[in-house]
């Protein structure tokens, strides 16, 4: 098996997404496609899958030219995509989802035969999912596993994983990687699109780095990590990673978080603390942040005498930025007009000035007239932060760096930290132990819906966290 991608060029209006990209991938090697957000990875994947038609260039699979811009032709040529968010039918059962669009079982629906076959293939790949269960009751990780098996089942020989591990637990990730390594030995071509270097180093044998739509280099793996980061960002990353971690001076004031819902009484933490709420994907950590925003969980100021923080001082940013945080068809400027002031009549010239200064301050790549949907994930997140008034408040950030690359992540945190000394406090959720450890003063651990630990960071060890969130007693 061999896939050759030759001189792919694709532009959207003025933006060049892929500029003369060529690469060759043979079976037997797991290939990584690396690059920061907006480097052109997704476009290239969409071209391979037939969802986009390139302006020029071609793709050759085992010497045969692929008809471009046709998903049907891509599927027929054995290309299978495991996308970022599982594309499945939530209301069907697992076995029904295998039937949809499959010609394997013929016209009759012999449920027992299908279930048998599925159990066999699930066992082969060590997947513990009951085929009779509805897809919506599975976790995202399980859904991705099922989807992967379905691709194999449909005779995909070239499997492209587009940042598939966002919702994976550690265990699921290892399981899926094991499957992929197995497939690789069998002669499948496997391409992993990712910006998580750990993953790439775990799984892949070679990596192609894209930057601004062009191919920078293909390198073997293992390879020098620093050099890869340098190639991805073309600038010295040490500046980004070696930020000094300042501990905030203890203040006399406390904020109290009412955890009686979890039978934990009220926790008092110093004002201005950053509280990391960590749990696996699907645990209660995101809901906790939302509960704090809609006042199911009470947060107040002061010790004992509990002065209330006015509701308008709570600022919440959801993790699915376009779905619940922003309005895709409104511009940056219009978002600002929505947020600021109680004026009835909008003075667009003032808003414009304000928008431009915020765009500069938050380093948002966009203009005051850019629509939210035109911004990349990192810039959408920065826009969410920019929209929060500068006055002291209480920030509730749901997975603020979800899906962001190293560079965007660090610049988002820079902005959060900048204001944190002024704020009453910051609660953020994350599924990443490193992030929780590095960015917080206090850590709340969620295992499922349960809180397993609330403590100052000095009171726990980093290694304990993974046990606390998986519910395993060490």
């Amino acid at each position, binding site marked *: 098996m061999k896939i050759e991608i030759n001189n792919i060029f694709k532009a959207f209006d003025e933006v060049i997404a892929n500029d003369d990209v060529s690469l060759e991938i043979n079976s037997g090697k797991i290939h990584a496609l690396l690059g920061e957000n907006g480097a052109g990875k997704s476009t290239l994947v969409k071209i391979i899958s037939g969802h986009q038609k390139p302006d020029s260039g071609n793709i050759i699979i085992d010497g045969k030219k692929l008809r471009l811009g046709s998903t049907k032709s891509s599927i027929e040529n054995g290309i299978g995509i495991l996308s970022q968010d599982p594309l499945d039918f939530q209301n069907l059962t697992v076995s029904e989802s295998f039937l949809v669009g499959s010609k394997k079982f013929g016209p009759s629906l012999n449920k027992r035969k299908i279930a048998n076959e599925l159990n066999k293939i699930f066992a082969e790949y060590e997947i513990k999912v009951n085929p009779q269960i509805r897809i919506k009751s599975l976790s995202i990780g399980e859904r991705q596993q099922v989807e992967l098996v379905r691709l194999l089942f449909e005779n995909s020989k070239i499997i492209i994983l587009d940042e598939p591990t966002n919702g994976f637990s550690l265990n699921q990730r290892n399981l899926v990687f094991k499957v992929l390594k197995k497939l690789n030995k069998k002669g499948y071509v496997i391409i992993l699109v990712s910006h998580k270097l750990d993953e790439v180093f775990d799984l892949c044998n070679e990596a192609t780095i894209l930057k601004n739509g062009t191919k920078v280099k293909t390198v073997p793996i293992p390879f020098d990590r620093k050099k890869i980061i340098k190639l991805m960002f073309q600038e010295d990353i040490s500046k980004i990673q070696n930020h000094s971690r300042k501990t905030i001076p203890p203040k006399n004031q406390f904020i109290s978080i009412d955890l009686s819902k979890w039978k934990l009484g009220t926790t008092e933490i110093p004002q201005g603390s950053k509280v990391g709420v960590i749990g696996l994907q699907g645990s209660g950590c995101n809901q906790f942040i939302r509960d704090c925003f809609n006042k199911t969980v009470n947060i107040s100021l002061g010790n004992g005498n509990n002065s209330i923080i006015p*509701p*308008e001082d709570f600022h*919440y*940013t*959801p993790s699915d930025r*376009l*779905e*619940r*945080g*922003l*309005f*895709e*068809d*409104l511009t940056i400027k*219009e978002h600002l*007009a*929505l*947020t600021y002031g109680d*004026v*009835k*009549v*909008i003075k*667009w010239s003032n808003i414009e000035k304000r928008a431009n200064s915020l765009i500069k301050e938050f380093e948002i790549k966009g203009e005051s007239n850019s629509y939210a949907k035109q911004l990349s994930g990192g810039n959408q997140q920065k826009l969410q932060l920019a929209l929060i008034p500068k006055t002291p408040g209480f920030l509730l950030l749901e997975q603020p760096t979800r899906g962001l690359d190293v560079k965007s992540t660090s610049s988002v945190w820079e902005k959060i930290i900048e204001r944190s000394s002024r704020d009453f406090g910051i609660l953020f959720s994350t599924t990443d132990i490193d992030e929780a450890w590095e960015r917080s003063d206090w850590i709340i651990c969620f295992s499922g819906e349960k809180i397993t630990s609330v403590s100052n960071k000095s009171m726990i060890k980093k290694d304990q966290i993974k046990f606390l969130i998986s519910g395993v007693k060490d």
Partner: protein
Amino acid sequence: MNSIKKLPLGTFFIKVILTLLVASIIMVLLGTSPIEVIRSIFDGAFGRPEKIVKTMLIFLPISLASLALIITFSGGLWNIGIEGQIVLGAIGATWVAKSFFGETLVSPIIQVIVGMSFGALWGLLCGYLKVKFNVHEIFGGLGLDFVATGAIIYLILGPWSRSGIASTSGTDIFPKESWFPTISSLNIPALSIIIVSIIILILILFLSYSRFGLMLRATGINPSSTNKYKFNSNHYIYLAFILGGAIAGLAGVFQASVFYHKLVPSISGGYGFLGILVVLASNRRILPTLLLTFFFSAMIAGGSQLQLRLDLHSSLISILLSSMVFFWLIFNSSKVNDLLHRIIKRN
């Protein structure tokens, strides 16, 4: 300030030409000369001053219906109930005209107030069903359309029937005082023109310069984000239906008191549905909507000439109008747009 991206002018004209081309082909297929048809439509719409006035009388209610729909579309709502809202406005106007106000000079103003309130209530009912009972506005609106149609026929044949006979040809003619004031012997509908102009102006300001308008549009794009911005999307759904219903109601008032001077069963003239086509075809922007409405009104006004002059059935006009909108929507689709872009770039 609008949420739809502006297209380069070049592609716009190409699409207009393509649409006209399709219309011409249809005319040729129907065995008539496009040029003759266009000329007689033009004559019928603008040939004499009184014909221009007639075109105006058609333009006013359709433009109001379209403006009402721009509001509800901004809130992300499919206001299929607009026909019913127009009917309710007309019922309101008739009620005033038949009351003792009907023979006083304040009648038109009271008609406007009552008609707009009736339309607003009918719209609000649809919004209430949506918010409180989760009835999709398409179903709610459609249901309320049927109720309104039933009500108007009941009123015309029952309580408001013509003295002596009950006939579906409508109620008695309104007293002269209830007709909207006009100027000159041509009966130019001055008051109506003023009212529509004011509404257009208010709407432009509302949608582009007020926070309420912006919040309404935000609600339309993504209601689940609104709670983060500390406003309640349901309030804006109500607001959209009240404003849209009121303006649609005004269209009904115009139909009853400016056009027919009585209540007839088909008082809405299908203008609500026509408005949906107009607004969709012009991407919910106010000025293009008005231009297209004007074009449609001219076609409708001029279409009545076709039968007399070219011996073509006047229904040809609705065939032309609907197929032009249909093809316009096709030419406006993203795929065709991309294609046009590429062709233009290459040349």
